């Protein structure tokens, strides 16, 4: 199996690339700008110039060197476009055939998660348990209005639209134990700010063991992980 890159790694590499290009371009332009302001400033009340009012002055003709700058910009910008296409397509398509599928349904105001275990649906609300080091595919839809499901850390999100199912994937970290927050990113009503869910990463082997053991086992496992997590929050100051 080919190594699956994590979504956030891809995102950060693109981000770095855009930032580098931006710094080169915008930085150059800003430096020229600053230099010109400094170099051609007028000190004191020196108030003479050959431009008289009562005439229309249309333009200062362009020099060849500025055209060069344009070509340069064009090349950088176009290469940004090309560079981002591959990444985009990679992020759009779930990279592994064996992705673990979880259904996500947005509602006012919360997230419902459904696992399919042996044809039976196991539902949790407000929290989801996922195995470590696995490609997870979220099938996202909405029961009422427009929501957007996403994780800040994984740098992915997808709209939850009524009547349509969209898909989004992440690759969970290798080490279990982290808890990530899923947010809603589209204003969906007065409780929008409260549409936060927890994604708890557990050990891959434990997870699939429970999963293989059948619906009853799995439900207990999930509920236990979630209630343990919630209890740990209560304990904290």
């Amino acid at each position, binding site marked *: 199996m080919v190594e699956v890159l994590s979504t956030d790694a891809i*995102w950060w590499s*693109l*981000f770095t690339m*855009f930032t580098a290009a*931006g710094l080169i371009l*915008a930085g150059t*332009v800003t430096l020229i*700008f600053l230099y*010109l*302001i400094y170099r*051609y400033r*007028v000190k004191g009340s*020196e108030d003479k*110039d050959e*431009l008289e*009012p*009562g*005439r*229309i*002055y*249309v*333009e*200062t*003709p*362009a020099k060849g060197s*500025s055209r060069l700058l*344009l070509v340069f910009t*064009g090349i950088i*910008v176009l290469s*940004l*476009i090309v560079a*981002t296409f591959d*990444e*985009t*397509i990679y992020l*759009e398509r779930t990279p592994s055939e064996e992705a673990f599928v979880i259904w996500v349904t947005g509602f006012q105001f919360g997230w419902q998660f459904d696992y399919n275990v042996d044809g039976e649906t196991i539902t949790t609300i407000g929290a989801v348990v996922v195995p470590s080091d696995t490609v997870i595919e979220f099938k*996202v839809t909405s029961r009422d*209005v*427009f929501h*957007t499901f*996403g994780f800040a850390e994984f*740098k*992915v*999100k*997808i*709209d939850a*639209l*009524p*009547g*349509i199912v*969209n898909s989004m994937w992440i690759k969970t970290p290798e080490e279990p134990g982290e808890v990530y927050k899923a947010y809603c*990113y*589209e*204003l*969906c*009503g*007065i*409780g*929008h*700010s409260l549409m936060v869910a927890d994604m708890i990463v557990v050990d891959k082997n434990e997870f699939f063991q429970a999963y293989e053991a059948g619906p009853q086992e799995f439900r207990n496992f999930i509920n236990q992980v979630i209630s343990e997590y919630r209890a740990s929050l209560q304990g904290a100051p």
Partner: protein
Amino acid sequence: MAGAEFFGRLTRWILRWLTTTNHKDIGILYMVTSVYFFFIAGVLALLFRTQLAMPASEFLTGKAYYEAVTVHGLIMLLWFASPFAAGLANYFVPLQIGARDLAFPRLNALSYWLYLASGILVILGFLAEAGAIDVGWTMYAPLTSKDFTPSPGVDLAVLGVALLSLSVTISTINFLVTIATMRAPGLSWFKLPMFTWSIIFTMILMLYAFPPLMVGAAILWIDRNIGTEFFSSPAGGALLWDHLFWFFGHPEVYILLFPALGAIADIVSTFARRPLYAKRYILTAFFLATILSFLVWMHHMFVTGTNLYTRLFYSFTTILISIPFEMATVSLILTLYKGKIRFTIPMLFALAAIFHFILGGSTGVYLGSIALDKGFRGTYWVVAHFHYILVGTMLFGFFAALYYWFPKITGKMYNKKLALLHFILATIGVNLTFFPQFIIFDMPRRYFTYDVPEWLTFNQLSTLGSYIFGLSMIVALITIVHGLLRGSPAPENPWRAWTLEWLTKSPPPPENFEGVPVVTNDGRVVFVSEEVAEKSSRSELVSGKLAGVQPLTGASHAAPSHSHAHSHPVSIDPFILGVGSLLALFGLVVNKFILAAGIAVLAWGLYRWLRDELNDRFHAEIPKYLETWPFPRSKLRNGMWVFIASEVMVFGSILSAYFFIRFNPVGKVLEEPWPPGYMIHDVGIGIINTMIMFTSTLSFAMAYLGVRKGDNILAQLGMIGTIFLGSLFLIVKYFEWKELFAAGYGLDWGLATQTYFLATGVHGLHVALGLLLTTYTLFKLYAGRLGPQRSEEVLMVAIYWGIVEIVWTFIFPLFYLV
């Protein structure tokens, strides 16, 4: 005694502002009103920034927070930014092109009063028990449907948006016709100042972008009040709204930006004492950006999960559009090269705006990548980016323009120290408010609470910045009031600038210039009297060698031999129509009697309007010496064609809704697939109506022929024929609708018939309007007002009927046949 006199003066003062049609007055009205809206929206921003500094508090949460955010966004964009630019444009475009006024002064006043009415409608929402609109300025479906948001505040805002679109469309007609046909002799397109150019591009953008918004708002309103389900059913729904809204929404950002950029360009060039560097590049850039701006709207839909290749195309165009803006920025910056830069207040604001633009622009490029947008969409990165553009660039551009033109508008100079304080506070405020938001870019926007500790400090910094910015606005107000009351008198041309608005008094007289400004071939500006201008040929004029004409020297020029006083006609009718629409739309939401009163006022205003029209009170030909190439020397014809372009977009939006719904796979699952038209509709009746439609247009063509030839009988017969056939068309339509409802194909049958009712309903309204126009034209004929020389007034109606017929050539087959 003194009291009565004061009262008399007060009424005269009020009446003057209610009845004025002078472009400078209207410009001031626009600016003052929009600044008023700006303060409302600004205070709202300070309120929710306060909440964000203490996220655990209950200061402003839930519904109240969302009302504040939504109204802030809506008002800032639609009722402050665009109208403020419209105010500047009103004041300065005629001056910069050497015209006496806009092409249609009375329509201009109407635009203003409709704009004011629409803004009041939105604000009135706060009085509603369920509060103002709270669904975000983007008004995403289906949250806006009545099931989820029953508040009448939404209806008020939606009607406000629709009314504003109408006002904007009227403005675009006015400005485009003015600039196309009323430029001073010798003032070619290329010589127009950048500000005027930016208004041209803005108007073109508005012309094509606002109709989809108007259609979207209208559909949303009927969804909420009549029971259609375009945006509430997933068969249309979220994605349909997204398309209509963002087709408007993206060009809207350039609508906001262009006027400020144009002003910045003129200001930079004035104070660097250099003509603009490579103006032709800047114009090319604006032109490319205008076209591309209609090809990028789907970057607001990158995470909708729709077709990947469509989105990739829009990703490509979005990143591409950064090139023209880079081009324009570089040209602006190179204007400084070899300049003699003077750091006046307007120049400081303009330079700071360019800085902010570089930052705001390059952080926007990220959002053009679908992959990066997956991280950024709906976060504070977006908020920071667009505020760097809107506040850092646009608003700073407006401040620059305000200080630049303040002496011209008021005849007074402002206090430099106060203005400098404003500049310093504003610059600190803006950067402190919005830069921290880049750092916490993971934070979702439109959240009134959060419990991530790292976000807290940055939010508090940001809030501090917004307070400083708020303070700077108070300083700005003081500066302006101080300047008005205490400022020293301003000379004609305090900046030694070289565009036309500086070649007249400060403030300019009602007729703008004494005599006709002429730009000679060697680039001088001379003034000639209207008589001389009328008598001379264009080449004589622009040669600059006419006898008796003084070249302009320095600050004052000798008044030409004679200039007749142009009395500016006043009219209260635009105000009446504004009040009428406010009452009618408000009544539509809250109360039948107010609605009836509103309609009565509207009818009264319309009657008065047409009466004046019939008496030619506002009729003014375009003087033959003005530049009009490549447009016909006719206000009416140009105006009508601009209107037609907006109509194309209105029906185009409906048509796109039709195709969207028809091809949406969700609809096919949800209800029965769209049935072939002939199963629901009677093709025979459709064909009959098609024939009626074609024949009525033929009949009107005959009427036009009659008027051109001076054959009054033919003209009369033709118009009567059109009126008869048009009415027949509507009657047939009425029975068709009735039968559909009787047969169970009413509104509850599904989107297929709802789309039919929408399309034929809007078309029917157009037919009705055409009937009114034709009847009125017939009146003019009877009143002896039409003749071969004035046949254009008939051609205008023929052009109108043409578009009504064209629309029908699509409606008939698409609904009846396939």
